[in-house]
């Protein structure tokens, strides 16, 4: 470039630099805009406020993690509700693809909302296998802060895999497209899973590295670690630690902290913990599988593999051995999904978490705590509540009372329909407080009137609230809340100084429990 040309170029550059900051930054498209095809839907739900939602995300070339979900559900019981995100048809695509990360973000957000809808705290645990862990990292930018509480990665190749890259994995991908998987672009999952050290960029067409997770998230990275035992007549001659689950080396499965931009997780981000699940594979079984797979003459396989393993080199024979081990060893990359010990690692992490926060004292128009007026007699029986009948007609009455030993709330149920008409504070719990305005025992009538301004307030101030008492019923859009008032001079009711002595409960309109009626 000549000096004469350099000067105008410098002006152009200066102009560009001056203009660029003035151009507004393009906002990131929403997950809905980015998720290609039909947004994922939730498949079930036994979700309740006290169950922690656990979203399972499969990996490259994988399928829905139903087996792991079943195991977790069996081991954790009513502690969790599992949801399995499936991007099976596109599972050969890279984790950041429009069919994967943004759709996963939508899915997790929907699960969180479903939990909030049943009065849960809306916080989610994610268990991600293999590339699923990287998909989650890309998805997090679309997920509202505070939604994901804990991430458990299982064999996630944070630093890639020796099998990834342009050479081997695409061959496998081509074969899988014959089985119905969507044909991946050039930057396929297998291609982008190439080994990359400590902050080095992904292959050219794979986009940015998976972002680090934000503060408030705990990442537990679980790695399978196979050791091969060679024995003669039942006696161990030696053991060879492979330091891999057959596909993902332990260093990669534990490599989260150095896997993003700059090669080090910035301070103030997610807390990281590492766990290793060791397992052993018998050389005799492994040997045949590996020899078959590689067609390597057995003796050459023995000699070369032993020497390479001792050097820590990822040679074809070592990779063949590791690959074969994956099918045999319980902590191998595929088998770990149903391995009792590996799934126990997940269970331990979830058990150590605090249970979902439920404000059992919150009174709303449609319920108290986790109980809503939408419940039925069947739901109550499932929770251990029994039909106590009513005082005059017993259990065959048109409206009966359901209660459970040691539980403070009682339910008035219409026998014919089984619907709950009212939830009453039978035990006189003083900690109850309204969601609107935080009205509680000792709040004044004036405070109640202010809190519920705009709602229809029925004031029973003429000793007509039952048993000669006074009280108030506030009617809301989907139910009514009843309060008892202290006996006071009429001037105190007028001025609003009279105090609330008791929150009676909630009921459908016309069924709010008073001092005389339980809502029937």
């Amino acid at each position, binding site marked *: 470039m000549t000096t004469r040309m350099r000067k105008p170029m410098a002006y152009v550059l200066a102009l560009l630099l001056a203009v660029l900051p003035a151009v507004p930054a393009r906002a990131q498209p929403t997950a809905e805009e980015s998720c290609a095809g039909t947004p994922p839907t939730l498949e079930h739900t036994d979700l309740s406020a006290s169950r922690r939602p656990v979203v399972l995300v499969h990996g490259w070339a994988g399928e829905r993690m139903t087996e792991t979900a079943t195991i977790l559900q069996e081991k954790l019981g009513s502690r969790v509700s599992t949801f399995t995100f499936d991007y099976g048809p596109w599972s050969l695509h890279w984790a950041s693809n429009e069919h994967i990360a943004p759709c996963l973000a939508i899915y997790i957000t929907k699960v969180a909302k479903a939990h909030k809808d049943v009065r849960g705290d809306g916080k989610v645990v994610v268990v991600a296998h293999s590339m699923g862990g990287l998909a989650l990292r890309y998805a997090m930018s679309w997920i509202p802060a505070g939604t994901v509480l804990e991430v458990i990665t299982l064999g996630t190749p944070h630093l890639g895999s020796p*099998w990834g890259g342009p050479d081997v994995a695409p061959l496998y991908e081509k074969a899988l497209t014959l089985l119905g998987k969507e044909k991946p672009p050039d930057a396929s999952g297998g291609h982008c899973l190439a080994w990359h050290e400590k902050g080095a960029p992904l292959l050219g067409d794979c986009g940015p590295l998976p972002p680090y997770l934000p503060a408030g998230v705990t990442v537990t990275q679980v790695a399978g670690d196979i050791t091969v035992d060679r024995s003669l007549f039942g006696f161990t001659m030696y053991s060879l630690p492979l330091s891999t689950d057959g596909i993902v080396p332990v260093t990669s499965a534990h490599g989260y902290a150095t896997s993003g931009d700059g090669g080090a997780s910035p301070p103030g981000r997610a807390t990281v913990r590492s766990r290793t699940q060791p397992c052993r594979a018998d050389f005799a079984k492994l040997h045949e599988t590996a020899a078959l797979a590689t067609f390597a003459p057995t003796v050459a396989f023995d000699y070369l593999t032993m020497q390479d393993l001792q050097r820590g080199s990822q040679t074809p024979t070592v990779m063949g051995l590791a690959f074969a081990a994956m099918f045999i060893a319980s902590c191998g990359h595929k088998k770990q999904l149903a391995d009792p010990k590996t799934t126990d690692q997940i269970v331990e992490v979830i058990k150590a978490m605090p249970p979902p926060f439920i404000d059992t004292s919150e009174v709303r128009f449609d319920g108290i705590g986790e109980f809503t007026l939408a419940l039925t007699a069947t739901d109550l029986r499932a929770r251990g509540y029994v039909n106590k009948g009513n005082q005059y007609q017993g259990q065959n009455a048109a409206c009966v009372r359901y209660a459970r030993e040691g539980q403070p709330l009682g339910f008035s149920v219409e026998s014919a329909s089984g619907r709950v008409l009212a939830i009453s504070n039978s035990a006189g719990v003083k900690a109850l407080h309204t969601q609107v305005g935080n009205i509680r025992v000792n709040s004044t009538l004036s405070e109640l009137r202010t809190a519920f301004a705009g709602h229809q307030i029925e004031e029973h101030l003429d000793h007509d609230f039952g048993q000669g008492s006074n009280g108030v019923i506030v009617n809301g859009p989907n139910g009514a809340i009843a309060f008892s008032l202290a006996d006071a001079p009429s001037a105190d009711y007028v001025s609003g100084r009279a105090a609330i002595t008791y929150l009676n409960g909630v009921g459908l309109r016309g069924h709010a429990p008073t001092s005389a009626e339980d809502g029937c």
Partner: protein
Amino acid sequence: MTRRTLVVTFTVVLVVIGAAVVFLLRGSGEVTDAATSSSTTAPPSTSVPPPLTKEQATAIAANLTSGSEERLRQAIAISPQQALDPAVAGQLASISSMEFDIATFRVEGDGTARMTARTNGSAAAVWTVALVAVDGQWRISWTEAAP
């Protein structure tokens, strides 16, 4: 065998062969270096020797149960650099009798061989024994309790 199983098996074989070819043909990088360095201790000749004789089988059994690591190494196919568990020679010596059934000896298509063995003492069982040819001699590669 379903179409899916066939395709997956074919793919696994294809992938591993591909991996081997790719890594062996690469002109640079750690893998090639390692592969080259592997050849510094060249694997022994793998030409298939004649079937095992009764005398050879007896000699192998004697070496295995000798209690000597040096003699044990003469009976098994193992890299010279691979250390053995110090206890294994003594443990094998605790086998009171080891008999190879020569009648069951057969050479497999890949140049390896199989036969059965019966042991008494601390490891009493019937075993499948795999042998490989090392410099014209049959040596034991692995053993597995017979089903």
